[in-house]
């Protein structure tokens, strides 16, 4: 049998080290390339803009460093709104899913309604919530915080309840039969079978709702009464024509998104790993 020498390309394709290296290096080099184009104003030529509307990365960095105290305060408000809304919304969503799993005939129908809420544009919700929370407090800051949290909450309820419901009901085949052969009570079935089965689905829901919670926090800040938060700063600075500052806040918003997603992935790996060891 003649053994032909494989081409360099073929050998690279089969080498696992080269593959992992390229998985890391290719996207990074692509990002660096874009940044270089941005800094050298090639991007400005392509999009036909000036350095004011699309400021250079170095300028954005400088603005973030110079104004870090103000940016931190605004970022904190947005994070509080996103996290509190996410947590409350997810808890309510999970409770709805539990309720629906216990009374499946009525629950499934209720979930179709919750799913329909998913399709309601956030923009429509935000002003309604601002109207509803007029009497919550005399302090406009607290008032608008509550309104913003409500918007995030509603958006998170839908994805959590639908995913958790699937986790509570789509059991592995024969597990329910096994439980009934043990003469397990409904409570035991729920605690030992349904609840653990739903946990991976809960994380699927979080993967969807973490980015959405930040987006809806940012958007609801546009309509809120009290001027605070990353989203509002983006808008206020655009109105004033200070595009570089607005860009700095956009970068901050992206960083918040990355941060929260990173925290989620870390929690997920810890929780799911300890489950696997058991």
């Amino acid at each position, binding site marked *: 049998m003649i053994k032909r020498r494989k081409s360099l390309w073929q050998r690279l394709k089969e080498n696992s080290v080269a593959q992992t290296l390229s998985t890391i290096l290719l*996207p990074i080099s692509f990002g660096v390339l874009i940044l270089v184009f941005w800094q050298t104003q090639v991007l400005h030529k392509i*999009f036909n803009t000036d350095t004011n509307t699309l400021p250079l990365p170095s300028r954005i960095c400088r603005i973030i460093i110079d104004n870090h105290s103000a940016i931190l305060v605004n970022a904190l408000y947005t994070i509080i709104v996103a996290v509190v809304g996410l947590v409350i919304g997810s808890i309510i969503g999970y409770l709805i899913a539990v309720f629906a799993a216990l009374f499946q005939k009525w629950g499934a*129908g209720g979930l179709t309604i919750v799913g329909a809420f998913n399709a309601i544009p956030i*923009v429509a919700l935000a002003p309604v919530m601002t109207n509803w929370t007029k009497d919550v407090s005399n302090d406009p800051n607290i008032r608008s915080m509550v309104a913003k949290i409500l918007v995030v909450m509603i958006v998170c309820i839908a994805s959590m309840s639908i995913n958790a419901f699937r986790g509570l009901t789509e059991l592995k085949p024969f597990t329910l039969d096994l439980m009934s052969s043990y003469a397990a009570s409904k409570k035991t079935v729920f605690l030992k079978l349904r609840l653990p089965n739903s946990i991976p689905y809960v994380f699927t829901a979080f993967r969807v709702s973490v980015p959405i919670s930040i987006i809806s926090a940012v958007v609801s800040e546009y309509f809120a009464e009290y001027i605070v938060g990353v*989203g509002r700063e983006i808008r206020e600075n655009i109105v004033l024509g200070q595009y570089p500052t607005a860009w700095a806040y956009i970068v901050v918003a*992206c960083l918040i998104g*990355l941060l929260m997603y990173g925290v989620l992935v870390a929690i997920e790996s810890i929780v799911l790993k300890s489950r696997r060891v058991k």
Partner: protein
Amino acid sequence: MMKKLNKIRQSKILVTLVWIAGIIVIWEIFAFIVEATKRTPENILPHIWQIIFSFFDPKPVANGMSCTAVVFVNAGQTLSRAGQGFLIGTLIGFVLAILMKLSRIVEKIAAPYLMLIQLIPILGMAPIILAMTHDIGSSRIIIAAILTFYPVATNTLAGLNSVEKAKYELMYSYSASKSTIYLKMLIPSCIPYFFTGLKIAAPMAITASILVDTLQGDGGLGCMLSQSLKHAMSIYVFWDIVVFSAVIGVLSCSLMGWIENIVSPIKRIERKTKKKGAA
């Protein structure tokens, strides 16, 4: 007769209807409380019938147009741009998914960025894109397209990657060319996933389009929404738009479901087997 009644009682539609009725009742209870305690109840929670009446009320509210006319004229503007952006985004997303399947290098470059772009609040970037394009129409289209392309791309790619190995082996045994593999096997089997992406993207494109409207006074649903909130016209215009956009959001999602039923080869086969089973 009894059988029919039982069938209705068993059906899922009844359950959904009961839930809707429950929500309406709760809404009305709160509306009555608000009406009794607040000075301007229509700003907080009007009765459902008031919203419906305002929709059919011929009284002009702005520019000599009635509520309905205002909503529909502006909805036309908003939805046409959302639709254009949606189509462009779908096309880009689908092509990107195919490219990622075709070339490992493209996949490696694009995969982390597809994940990252989800974390960027694109809606927050709306004002910047408006400043870059200087035109509200095209910025609406661009944002709707960006929001559409990544759910479509990620879902389609998941569909392309979900094809079982046995099918590849079958294709290999036919000595099928690459284009045949794509046209006859990969693309048809990714269609359900593709439509899942479209169902996620459609309400998002509409939301984006409405949000961009609020930034500039050029017309469109969002623009009317903010004007009505500032009491430049009847506050019922605001409620009409809220209800209308919610309905449109839900409809856009089910519209994708209907299109899937017509287009998707898998659904067509399902229907055929059902017919045969019935006959």
